């Protein structure tokens, strides 16, 4: 099997993950993961179900405590400065929801306050307009379509003007038209603000379109990394989708990419 040895050596790393390991009893969900994400990059974390993508993101957000290893975001250690980091990042997932019994605006008011915005009327209006759901303003969140809910989640995720946005399958369950619109908006915002995104998706076309760099995970290990074009070439696959299927079926045969020589994390 092909092994990619590309190291990530960005000059302005906004996220540094060093030998991140997470074990749940006998299951090793993440096995000594090391990688960097540069400011302004869109990194795709890819892999089959159970590969460790969501666990990695949840470790970075402090929802899951790593067994060992360290994570530094914007130069701060997640274990020690979780709240400071959380004020400057945000997260949107197809698998979380906002309270269905609150209106769209009420939900955004609550989250604006959680992120320290006392008067967020203008910001909320701008975001609703940006994601083209301004007409849902006074509607109950539970009455929205999947596409509107996704865009509302993204409005929530942009409330604090994050420096890093974690997106866990943001376009899952969307029709192609809405998914394309969401991608366009995200790319637009990323360009305008120099936003860094860490992205998981099972839609490989979307990944090729969105991501500057991708990391393939299998059984909690990095088995391939690089730009989508690079890794298609290196793996001699026809497409990212073919590579995904190969890794999903034979991930255990792929060698682990060793980024440790890069040792991104130092002590504070």
């Amino acid at each position, binding site marked *: 099997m092909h092994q990619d040895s590309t190291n990530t050596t960005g000059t302005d790393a906004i996220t540094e993950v060093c030998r991140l390991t997470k074990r749940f009893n006998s299951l090793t969900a993440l096995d000594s993961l090391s990688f960097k994400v540069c400011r302004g990059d869109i990194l795709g974390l890819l892999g089959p179900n159970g590969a460790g993508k969501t666990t990695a993101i949840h470790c970075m957000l402090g*929802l*899951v*405590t790593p067994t060992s290893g360290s994570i530094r975001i914007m130069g701060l250690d997640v274990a020690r400065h979780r709240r400071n980091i959380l004020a400057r990042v945000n997260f949107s997932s197809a*698998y979380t929801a*906002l309270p269905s019994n*609150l209106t769209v605006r009420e939900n955004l008011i*609550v989250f604006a*306050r959680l992120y320290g915005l006392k008067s967020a009327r203008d910001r909320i209006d701008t975001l609703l307009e940006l994601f083209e759901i301004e007409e849902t303003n006074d509607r109950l969140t539970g009455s929205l379509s999947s596409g509107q809910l996704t865009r509302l989640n993204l409005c*929530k995720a942009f409330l604090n003007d994050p420096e890093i946005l974690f997106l866990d399958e943001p376009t899952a369950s969307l029709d192609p038209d809405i998914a394309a619109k969401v991608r366009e908006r995200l790319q637009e915002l990323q360009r305008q603000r120099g936003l860094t995104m860490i992205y998981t998706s099972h839609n490989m076309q979307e990944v090729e379109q969105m991501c500057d760099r991708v990391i393939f995970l299998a059984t909690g290990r990095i088995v391939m990394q690089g730009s989508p074009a690079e890794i298609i070439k290196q793996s001699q696959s026809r497409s990212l989708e073919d590579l995904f299927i190969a890794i999903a079926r034979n991930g255990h045969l792929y060698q682990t990419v060793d980024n440790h020589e890069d040792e991104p994390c130092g002590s504070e």
Partner: protein
Amino acid sequence: MWLRISAIVMRFFFLHRRSVARVMEIFFWPVMNLLVWGFVTSYLKELAVPKTVLFLIGAVILWDVLYRSQQGITLAITEEFWVKNIINIFISPISIGEFLAAICVVGLIKSVVTTIVLGFLAFFFYSFNLLSAGPGLVLFLGNLLLFGWAVGLFTMALIFRYGRAAEALIWGVPFLIQPISAVFYPVSVLPAWLQKIAYLLPSTYVFEGMRQVLATGVVDVSILGISFGLNLVYLFLGSLYFSWMLCKVREMGYLSRLHLE
């Protein structure tokens, strides 16, 4: 800090202002309780046991303060699990202390609203004047509120750890405490060994004190002081247990899985 606390309080205000079912939860069960027990005691009054009437109506009202306080905070957190919003809350910069403070405020508001409504109804239907306890009433209510929060912290910790399987505890735990707290009868009714356990609960002193004040008009501040001291201990232990459980839950990855249940 206050902005983040107010965010959570506001979230529950928004939720309740258009949910008849949730508003009914504040009013319906307490009112039904009061009516049933009130009429039972009216019957007892006919049997010439007048103090019993006062004791039972007072007990029903005070019990509801403890119950609503515990429910206020446990349901606030369970609500976030139900609507899959718990991760959104926990990836915001709110601290655990701020979150707990916010849901305690929610519990406080529910308890105050319920007490006011029951106080009016008790006066209207049974000529029971809740204010007859004088300023001591604040001490009774305050102690029950604090104990409700402490019980709520233990209950919430278990819900975090065991997820939906532990949801029944929200309603069950208060009723484990009720018979031992001597809510509707004096502690002396309990077997000697159970009396020792009863005096470990802050609520027992409140209900004993309530009966004393209704019978003699005198508030025994010393027993309310013991109740307050015990409350501080339970709140401290409850906070420690909750924080420890949250660390365990983060280690075990349950926080990211709970919302999927």
